């Protein structure tokens, strides 16, 4: 049951700041246990082991995408070399095997790596939803410390159990500071 604030803007969520990693993990664990699902933690560096405390999904799909694209690129590279050097214009050099697959390995390897790397980069951007220069949190005053030394937890309004007053109280209990409701722009 969403509590609509007097402001005309839709609510994005409620944010609270925590002093360090310990406090963030402790608070995050309680938030997860309270049944909230659309949550996120923000920090200047990745917090290792956060999946043990908060329900933050691990990255499972990205490596498989990279694998399959890389594999297809490798197969395509072999096919390209076969077609170009063996089929379309066969290179007859001193009676050497026309399909000299050992010689074709370096280019195959490089094409695989190049395709995998580019895929990793593009998939990463896709999964992170970036570039997204405008975001309600980025314009929230005080949030810019996230890239310096501050740690935040956000519960989004999309959450089925979202209740602004309850969440404010919860964060207060957990020792959150600068608790605030963030509005959509």
């Amino acid at each position, binding site marked *: 049951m969403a509590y609509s604030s007097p402001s005309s803007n839709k609510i994005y969520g409620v944010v609270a700041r925590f002093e*360090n*990693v310990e406090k963030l993990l402790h608070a995050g664990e309680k938030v997860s246990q309270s049944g909230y699902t659309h949550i*996120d*933690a*923000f*920090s*200047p*560096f*990745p*917090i*290792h*082991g956060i999946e043990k405390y*908060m329900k*933050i*999904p*691990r*990255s499972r799909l*990205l*490596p498989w995408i*990279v694998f399959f694209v890389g594999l297809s690129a490798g197969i395509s590279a072999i096919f390209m*070399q076969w077609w*170009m*050097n063996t089929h*379309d*214009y066969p*290179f007859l050099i001193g009676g*050497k095997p026309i399909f*000299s697959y050992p*010689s*074709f390995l*370096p*280019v195959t*390897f*490089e*094409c695989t*790596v*190049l395709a*995998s*790397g*580019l895929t*990793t*980069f593009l998939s*990463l*951007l896709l*999964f*992170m939803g*970036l*570039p*997204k*220069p405008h*975001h309600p*949190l*980025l314009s929230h005053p005080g*949030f*810019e*410390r*996230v*890239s*310096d*030394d501050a740690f935040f937890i956000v519960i989004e309004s999309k959450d089925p159990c979202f209740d602004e007053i309850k969440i404010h109280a919860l964060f207060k209990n957990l020792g959150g500071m600068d608790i605030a409701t963030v509005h959509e722009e």
Partner: protein
Amino acid sequence: MTQAMPPITQVLEPEPLLQGNPSLTQITEIVSAPVEQEIRLTPLTWKICFAIALSMLGIFVFSVGYLLIKGIGIWGNTNNIGWGWDITNFVWWVGIGHAGTLISAVLFLFRQKWRTAINRFAEAMTIFAVLCALMFPILHTGRPWLAVYWLFPLPNQMGIWPNFRSPLVWDMFALITYFTISLIFWYVGLLPDLATLRDRAKTKLRFYIYGILSMGFRGSNKHYQHYEKAYMIFAALSTPLVLSVHSIVSFDFATSVLPGWHATIFPPYFVAGAVFSGFGLVMTLMLFVRRALGLKQLVTDRVLENMNKIMLVTGTLVGFAYITEFFIAWYSGSPAEFFTFKNRALGPYAWAYWIMMSCNLIFPQLFWFKKIRRSIVAMFVISILVNIGMWFERFVIIVTSLHRMIPARWDYFYATWFDVLIYLGTFGLFFTLFLLFLRFLPAIAISEIKGTTKAANPHGGD
């Protein structure tokens, strides 16, 4: 007469990664401060260095222009000695680049936390070094506007395709892949730090530029899950990539039949040599930069010592390769092979050979001594000697095998002014880009180095 002493147990504290246990904010300050200087308050040292670098870049542009107009004849290459400074410089620059990838990728896979002090810096060096390296295979073809097009698998008017058996074609694929992957890896690593600079921006221009470059990165751990996965994939891809790239470069020689070149030891020998020379230049430049930008708290003496240890290991590998080559040349019973090696040590290029041997085999062995590993002066001198020695190694390999390869035509290579100018010019290209990097981008991976602090790992371990 000895008495049994009671066992003394003393818990030794490991040397801290960062000196003085700086707070997260302090780390941000130390690294961001030089970048956030107003343009007009840029330190004079930077301006002078940049002016010199720009003039050397000008020399580069001039030399390349003159080369394209007049042709390869302006170099010292002769009919016999088809490769001179051009390929020496190519292999040297590519080698320099390999240190960055080793630090970023290999040390990451080995979970060496100290790498975070130098990885951003070394990766930037890799990208600029590979750019410089690329110049040489392109230009040494004589008519690069034709040759480069024909190296790509693109349709041409003759209806033929590249010869995929050729190491030059392999080089092209390898270097383009290496450059692209290094650039992407470096950029992905930069995203959190660009966000830091965006969040601290004091002028609108900086806010917009860093804002666009950081793409709206906001430190979300949901994002970090994908980010860390991607980072791991990059590290896992880059490791075999760096090994394959310099192996492919070594194939430029090993796939030929020349004595001294046609040896299976070349791939591991070259890769070890590349890491060796790369660390040499990273060390040389880092000593200047950490003093100039005030980074001593983050790039500690422990980090420098570790770099020296890596130089010791790779230098020993290279020395071992020299000895193996010579032994096999004798043991093989091949008169041509053995002659080539005797010629290197005692022939007209003995001067180059012994510079190479002393710089690569002898001086780095001093790093066995801790006092020398920790002495700034010693490591500065040795790192410069390593760079010089490794340049001479490539020069010796290339020219000594070529200058007497045809028994009826012994020759001697003399470098011309243009050989020297174009080489100096690539330094101009490198340092121009490098100084711009130091001025506008964080020289240390802020987010990564924060991740190694105790504050980031309250429950210990990774």
